[in-house]
């Protein structure tokens, strides 16, 4: 007897984008379920510390300014129609979150307070101390409990399924606790399964950020876009790569080199430490490479902010510095370095989250939607501004959820044969049946992470990237033979990690391919062998399509420009 569940809309992933999408889809009257490999409050949205941007007109801010700074931050690769929607709808979404119960920081007059964030001239970042992501995630989960949405917790999705017309019809997944494989039929599937940070080693990302949703969509025929655009955050702890929020610099912290100089003066005389992240990370790396760093780091100095600000508004990173680096931020500066943080690229969608083009300009998968870090609108282009990612998840999570709910009304339940479950079971059995090897999943993953960090980091060149590409191909070959030593059915995390690595290798391959293709420097993609931005040839997106029977196929889409022509980018 094959287990099959049926819903109108199935959301894969239960971080901010997934929960917001599910709630919005439910509001359209659709039967909605969420499927997630970890409990919703364990999601990586937790890790967003600093805040969420919005330009509120009633306090003299303009959405156009927010939009322009986002476009400039993206190094003019962001699609401006999407950016305009983000900036226009931000205010209402923040109020919705507040009404749901988010305990945003307040002014003395009881209204929402703001702080400054990078790449922006105005203070338009709303926040909850420095655990804004956690505060939002827990509140959205409260709303999901209130709405009694079914959540399939600790289920691992292995593939998307399509009907005979190529229409997305659900997913095949197994319950981690029992090993049971089941089919989840749905008229619409929303991929909101987050980023792929663990492709790099180290990374600020949680261990669960393995690009599952991105790879699953890619394999089912949805194109990936802007995959070369990987954000390196300027303030991470060396070694494990834990994040120290941009909120520190937002509150006024300095970056110093070994000589005690605020070196950002040389690189971004106006915005200093609050220039966009790609600019600050590059500056740090230059300081370090030219011998003005300290053990591969520069220093983040918070001391002059005073104990009050540090304890009240930076409580999380104060604790973090103490626990993980043994440093009291009120007493001494902390060594930080650029670290992999965020994927600007992802599954290509339109502004309603659809992974197919109504006009047929690019091919995709009807019935498939994506939102959050897994998706690429392209909103963030070559570089995302701090505090725009939380905003992205709620604005475009909501839009994807609503669109998917409405779309499901127009569709019959797709016809999917039970055979897909058997296929799923067989492929897991095949993994268990592999002959024993000395090689391990962990070893392959570490080698992948190191190759990516060494060759696709802050500075890149042809030779290094080609080397990474070859390494990934070799690791893929090794993955095809690596054995899983734990063969149990119950909570087999060895199996989970092997499947995650399979997804990560696809992601790594597309990142290297995108980066090799883009022969210019733009945003976070900086090539020492092509130093300049080349608007004439590269004011366009790179789309990567999966091929079952050959190498990936490249496509290109022009950047959508509404009102801001590319300019020289100075901070």
């Amino acid at each position, binding site marked *: 007897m094959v287990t099959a569940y049926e819903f109108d809309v199935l959301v894969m992933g239960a971080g901010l984008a997934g929960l917001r999408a599910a709630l919005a889809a439910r509001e359209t009257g659709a039967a909605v379920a969420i499927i997630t490999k*970890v*409990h919703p*409050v*364990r*999601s*990586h949205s*937790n*890790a967003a510390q600093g805040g969420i941007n919005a330009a509120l007109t*009633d306090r003299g801010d303009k959405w156009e300014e927010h939009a322009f700074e986002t476009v400039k931050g993206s190094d003019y690769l962001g699609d401006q129609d999407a950016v305009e929607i983000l900036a226009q709808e931000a205010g209402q979404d923040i*109020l919705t979150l*507040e*009404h*749901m*119960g988010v*305990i*945003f*920081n*307040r*002014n003395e*007059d*009881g*209204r*929402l*307070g703001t702080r400054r964030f990078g790449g922006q001239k105005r203070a338009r970042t709303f926040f*909850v*101390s420095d*655990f804004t992501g*956690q*505060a939002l995630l*827990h*509140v959205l989960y*409260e*709303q999901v*409990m*209130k709405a009694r949405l079914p959540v399939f917790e600790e289920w691992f999705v292995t593939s998307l399924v399509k009907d005979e017309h190529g229409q997305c019809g659900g997913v095949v997944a197994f319950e981690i*606790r029992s090993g049971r494989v089941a089919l989840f039929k749905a008229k619409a599937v929303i991929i909101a399964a987050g980023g792929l940070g663990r492709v790099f080693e180290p990374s600020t990302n*949680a*261990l*669960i950020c393995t690009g599952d949703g991105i790879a699953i969509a890619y394999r089912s025929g949805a194109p990936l876009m802007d995959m070369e655009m990987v954000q390196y955050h300027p303030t991470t702890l060396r*070694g*494990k790569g*834990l*994040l120290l929020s941009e909120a520190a610099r937002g509150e006024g912290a300095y970056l110093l080199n070994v000589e005690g100089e605020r070196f950002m003066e040389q690189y971004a005389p106006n915005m200093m430490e609050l220039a966009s992240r790609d600019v600050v990370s590059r500056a740090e790396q230059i300081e370090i490479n030219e011998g003005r760093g300290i053990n591969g780091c520069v220093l983040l100095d918070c001391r002059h902010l005073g104990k009050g600000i540090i304890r*009240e508004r930076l*409580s999380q990173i104060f604790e*973090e510095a103490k*626990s*993980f680096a043994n440093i009291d931020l009120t007493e001494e500066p902390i060594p930080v370095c650029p670290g992999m943080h965020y994927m600007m690229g992802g599954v290509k969608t339109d502004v309603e989250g659809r992974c197919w083009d109504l006009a047929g300009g690019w091919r995709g998968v009807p019935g498939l939607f994506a939102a959050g870090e897994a998706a690429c609108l392209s909103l963030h282009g070559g570089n995302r501004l701090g505090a725009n990612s939380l905003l992205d998840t709620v604005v475009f999570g909501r839009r994807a959820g609503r669109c998917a709910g409405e779309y499901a009304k127009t569709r019959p339940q797709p016809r999917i044969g039970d055979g897909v479950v058997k296929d799923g079971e067989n492929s897991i059995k095949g993994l268990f049946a592999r002959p024993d090897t000395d090689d*391990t999943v*962990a070893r392959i993953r570490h080698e992948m992470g190191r190759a990516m960090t060494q060759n696709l980091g802050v500075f890149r060149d042809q030779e290094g990237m080609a080397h990474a590409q070859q390494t990934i191909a070799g690791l893929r070959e090794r993955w095809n033979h690596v054995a*899983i*030593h*734990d063969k*149990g*059915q*119950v*909570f*087999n*995390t*060895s199996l989970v990690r092997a499947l995650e690595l399979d997804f990560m290798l696809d992601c790594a391959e597309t990142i290297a391919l995108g980066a090799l293709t883009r022969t210019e420097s733009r945003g976070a993609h900086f090539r020492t062998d092509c130093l300049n931005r080349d608007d004439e040839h590269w004011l366009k997106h790179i789309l990567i399509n999966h091929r079952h029977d050959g190498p990936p196929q490249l496509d290109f889409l022009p950047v959508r420009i509404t009102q801001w022509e590319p300019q020289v980018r100075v901070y």
Partner: protein
Amino acid sequence: MLTTFRIRRFNPESESPQPYFEDYQLVTERSDTVLDALIRIRETVDESLTLRCSCRGAICGSCGMRINGHATLACKTKVASLISPDETIHVEPMNNMPVIKDLVTDMAGFWEKVRQVQPWLQPTGPEPEGEYLASPDAMNHLTGVMGCIMCGACVSDCAALEVNADFVGPAALAKAYRFVADPRDGSSSSRLTALNNPGGMWDCTRCMECIEVCPKGVGAMDRIMTLRAKGIEQGVPSTAGSRHTEAFADLIERKGRLDEPMLAVRTFGLANVRQMFSFLPMVLRALVRGKLPKSGPLFRPIPGIARIRRLFRRAKEGR
């Protein structure tokens, strides 16, 4: 530094599924957390060692487990903080919840109890066009409880839950407090009335374990005490729990030490015949052994009772 980890293992699929301890020796660095060590064991020694983990930064709440007898987050616990080099580190799954495999526990019951407190904002009146106005202090105060990451450490080590499975537990009560203390929430009196029922806020035995083990400083027990005080303030119907609290304070104020028989009488009421009868065997045994405490008029105030009463007066004025 060579460190021994003694890990409680459990494989439900083995032929005789019984928990057992397994030792692993590992070279650890000063900077290693227990989570780093467990991951290294999993990656280099025994792939089948099973645990939940994700963020590595004490924010996702996945890696709750008991280390050397107390629940905590493995990612927040430095190996070097635990031991001198020749000692063994004990790692076990969380308590007060069923174990699925090795260090992975079933948290369904945990979440069921969180749902019991209706953990979502329930404002009254029309929604404002803009944000709800709220004082910065009120919101800052709530960040202390909102910092809860639902890791389960407090529930694991809760002494009351160990003997009273109906107790809603510290995590759910801290969550309830988060709404009772939110100026935007309009349901605090109905919340307090619900928490007044058996299994609610009066079932905490104030052992302070939840405060001790919380990796985020939520201070669940303190929140529970505030809930009780608010409950009494708002006049929720008296319960054995609230009468116990009030009688306790009153008896101390009058006598300077606890008149235990009177405390029982005032908590349960003399009219509660069944309860009073249930004490009879204990009373008789105490009588036989000459250990029956004095009570009522026979129980004299301690010398210097005036000072105690002065303390009470000051405390009441201080409010």
